[in-house]
C-alpha cells in the first residue's frame, strides 16, 4: 500500500511518437495525491484522459513532463512490476490453462515464495473473494464476473502491492452480476485497506466505489472530491452536468445590482448582498440549479416564474418534469403524490441555497 502522487504531469502521445507540430496533450497539468489505503475513482467521458493517467500511474507510459511518486519516492523510471502495481482490465484476464488456485498463486510462485506460504495466502484471498469453492476449476470455465474476481485475486495476493488499478472492470459483466461484484470490490478495499484506483465513465460505479472521485474532461481535472461534494458543490458546469441524474440545469443569465437575475425573458430575485458578491466577477453568468432543488408548484405562487409542463417521466418513486419556459427547457422533480400532467402550468422558484453561479464554465460562488 502506498500514497500515490502525480506532480505536474503532462503527457502527449503525439510527442511520444515524434510529431513535431500540431501536437496535443492528452492530459494537462495533473496534480493529485491519493492517500494510502483510499478508494479512488477517475471519472469522465471517453477521451477525457483517464486511461492515459492510469497508464502513467501503472508505469506503462512515461509522462512527457512531470513525475509519479509512491510514498514520496520518484518511480517515474520504474516498470509496472517494479512499482508493485496490480491491474484489473476491462475484460477478464486469466490464465486459461491453469485452475483458479494456480492463477492466484502465480505471482507468488514467480516471486519464489515457498509453497506453504503460497497455500496459506491463496486460501486467504479466495475466502475474501468467495472463490474457495472454485479453486480447483479451470479458470477458463468461469463466468466473466468470477474471472474478474480471479484477476482481482492475483492483484491482491502479494502483500507488498502498492495499489490496485481497475480499468472499467464491469464492462463485460452482466447487469445483474454487477451489483455483487461492485459490493465485493468495495468490501475488499475496506478490509484489506489497499489503495484502489477505479477508472470509469459511469458515475454510478465511481460514486458507489470511491470516497474520492476525480472528474476529468478533455485531459484536465475538473474537480476532485467526495461524492457528496461533487453533487452539492460542483466546481465547473461540466461536473454539474455530469454528476446527477438528471444533471444540473444550466441557464445563461445576467445579474443586476438590485438582486434581479434575468434569463430568457424572465427573472427572479436574490438577496442584494449575494448579488453584490457575484457582481465582483462581472454581470454575465451561467446559473446552475439541480432539478431536485427546483421548487415546483401546481398552485399559483405570486412572484414565481411560470412555465408549461412539456414532459412528465414517472419513475414510480418520483416524477421528472421537463418544463419549458419560452425557448429554455428546465428539469425539475416532483414527489410521486403531486398531481401534475403534461400541458399543465407550473410555478417555479429557485431557493437561493440551491443556486450555483458559473463563469466560463468555472464556479464563481
Amino acid at each position: 500500500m502506498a500514497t500515490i502522487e502525480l506532480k505536474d504531469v503532462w503527457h502527449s502521445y503525439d510527442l511520444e511518437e515524434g510529431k513535431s507540430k500540431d501536437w496535443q496533450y492528452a492530459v494537462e497539468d495533473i496534480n493529485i495525491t491519493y492517500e494510502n489505503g483510499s478508494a479512488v475513482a477517475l471519472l469522465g467521458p471517453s477521451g477525457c484522459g483517464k486511461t492515459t493517467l492510469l497508464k502513467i500511474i501503472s508505469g506503462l507510459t512515461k509522462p512527457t513532463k512531470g513525475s509519479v511518486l509512491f510514498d514520496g519516492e520518484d518511480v517515474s523510471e520504474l516498470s509496472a512490476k517494479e512499482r508493485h502495481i496490480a491491474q484489473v482490465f476491462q475484460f477478464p484476464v486469466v490464465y486459461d490453462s491453469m485452475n483458479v488456485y494456480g492463477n492466484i498463486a502465480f505471482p507468488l510462485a514467480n516471486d519464489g515464495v515457498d509453497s506453504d506460504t503460497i497455500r496459506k495466502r491463496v486460501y486467504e484471498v479466495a475466502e475474501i473473494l468467495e472463490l474457495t469453492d472454485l479453486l480447483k476449476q479451470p479458470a477458463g470455465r468461469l463466468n466473466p464476473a468470477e474471472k474478474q474476481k480471479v484477476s482481482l485475486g492475483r492483484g491482491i495476493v502479494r502483500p507488498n502491492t502498492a495499489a490496485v488499478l481497475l480499468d472499467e472492470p464491469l464492462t463485460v459483466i452482466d447487469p445483474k452480476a454487477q451489483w455483487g461484484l461492485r459490493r465485493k470490490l468495495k468490501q475488499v478495499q475496506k478490509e484489506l485497506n489497499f489503495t484502489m484506483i477505479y477508472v470509469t465513465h459511469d458515475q454510478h460505479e465511481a460514486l458507489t466505489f470511491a470516497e474520492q472521485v476525480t472528474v476529468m474532461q478533455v485531459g484536465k481535472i475538473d474537480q476532485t472530491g467526495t461524492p457528496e461534494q461533487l453533487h452539492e458543490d460542483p466546481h465547473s458546469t461540466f461536473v454539474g452536468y455530469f454528476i446527477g441524474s438528471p444533471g444540473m440545469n444550466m441557464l445563461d443569465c445576467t445579474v443586476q445590482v438590485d438582486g434581479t437575475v434575468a434569463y430568457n425573458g424572465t427573472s427572479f430575485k436574490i438577496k442584494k448582498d449575494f448579488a453584490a458578491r457575484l457582481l465582483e466577477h462581472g454581470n454575465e453568468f451561467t446559473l446552475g440549479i439541480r432539478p431536485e432543488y427546483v421548487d415546483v408548484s401546481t398552485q399559483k405562487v405570486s412572484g414565481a416564474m411560470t412555465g408549461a409542463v412539456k414532459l412528465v417521466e414517472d419513475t414510480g418513486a418520483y416524477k421528472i418534469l421537463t418544463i419549458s419556459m419560452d425557448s429554455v427547457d428546465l428539469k425539475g422533480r416532483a414527489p410521486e403524490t403531486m398531481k401534475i400532467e403534461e400541458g399543465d402550468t407550473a410555478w417555479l422558484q429557485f431557493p437561493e441555497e440551491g443556486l450555483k453561479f458559473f463563469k466560463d464554465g468555472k464556479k464563481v460562488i
Partner: protein
Amino acid sequence: MKYDNKAWLFLIPSLAVMALSAFIPLMTVVNYSLHYIFSGAIPEFVGFANFIEVLRDPKFQGALGRQLLFTIAILAVQMPLGIAIALSMPKKGVGVAISLVLLGIPLLIPYNVVGIVWRLFSQSDIGLIPEVLSWIGYSYNVSLDPVDAPVTIFLLDVWHWTPLVALLAYAGYLAIPDAFYRAAEIDGASRWKTFRYVTLPKLRPVLVLGFLLRFMDSFKIYAEPLLLTGGGPGDTTTFMSLFVARKAQSYELGYAGAASLIYLFIVMVMSYLFFQLLTKLGQGEGQKA
C-alpha cells in the same frame, strides 16, 4: 424453418463435384481392393485376402515405417520452429510486410517446381549443396547415400512448409490482446512462463490446425521425393503414397486398392486421435489446490 431448407440447395453443386471427383473413385478403389486383378483377365472376388497380403508384406511395413518416422520428424521440427519464427517476426512497421513476403514465397511455389529446384541444388555434379558440403569435407551424394537422400527431402519439406506454421502462429499471436502480456509482466512471469501460460494456450486453436494440416500433408508427400530421388536410393525415400502409386502403376490394382484403403484408415484414425488429444491437453492444470 424455411430458410434452413433453402441453404441445402446451395450445397448441391459442391456435393456433385465431390461425388464425381472423390466419392466415385473411392468406390472404385474399394471395388479393386476386394478383387484379384490380373491384366486382361476377369477380376476375381477374393474378399479380404488383399488386405492380409498387404499387412504382411515387409515392403509395405517398410514404407509405412519410413513414413511414420518422416512425419514425426517433420512435426517435431516444424511446429516449434514455426512458432519461434512467428514470435520473432515484427508486429508492426515495414518489417511486417517484408517478413510476410519472405515467408510466403516458399509456400507459393508448386510442389513439382520445388522438387526440381532442389534436385538441381543437390545433384552430385552441378549442385550447390554437394559443392558447399565438400568444403567442410563431407562427400554428399543424394542419389547413392541412404542418409543424404531422406535428410535432403526432410530439409526440403522444412523449407517449404514451416512458413505455413509460422504464418498461422503469427496470425494467432497478433490476436492475443496486449492486456494478457501486461498482466503476465505485472505477475512477474519469466519469458518462458509467459510463453507457456499466455502465448501457448492462446495459440492452441491455431496450432492444432497447423499440426493437423502438417500431419496430413506430410503423410501423403509425393511429388518432391519422386522428382528429387525417384524414391531411392533403393527405397530409402519411398514413402507411403509413392509406394501405393507404384503398385497401382504396375497393375497390382487389388493390392494397391487394399493398401490405399489401409493408408486412408490410418490417416483418419490418427487425425482423430491427435485432434482429441490436442484439444483436451493441458486444461486446468495448476498446483494442487
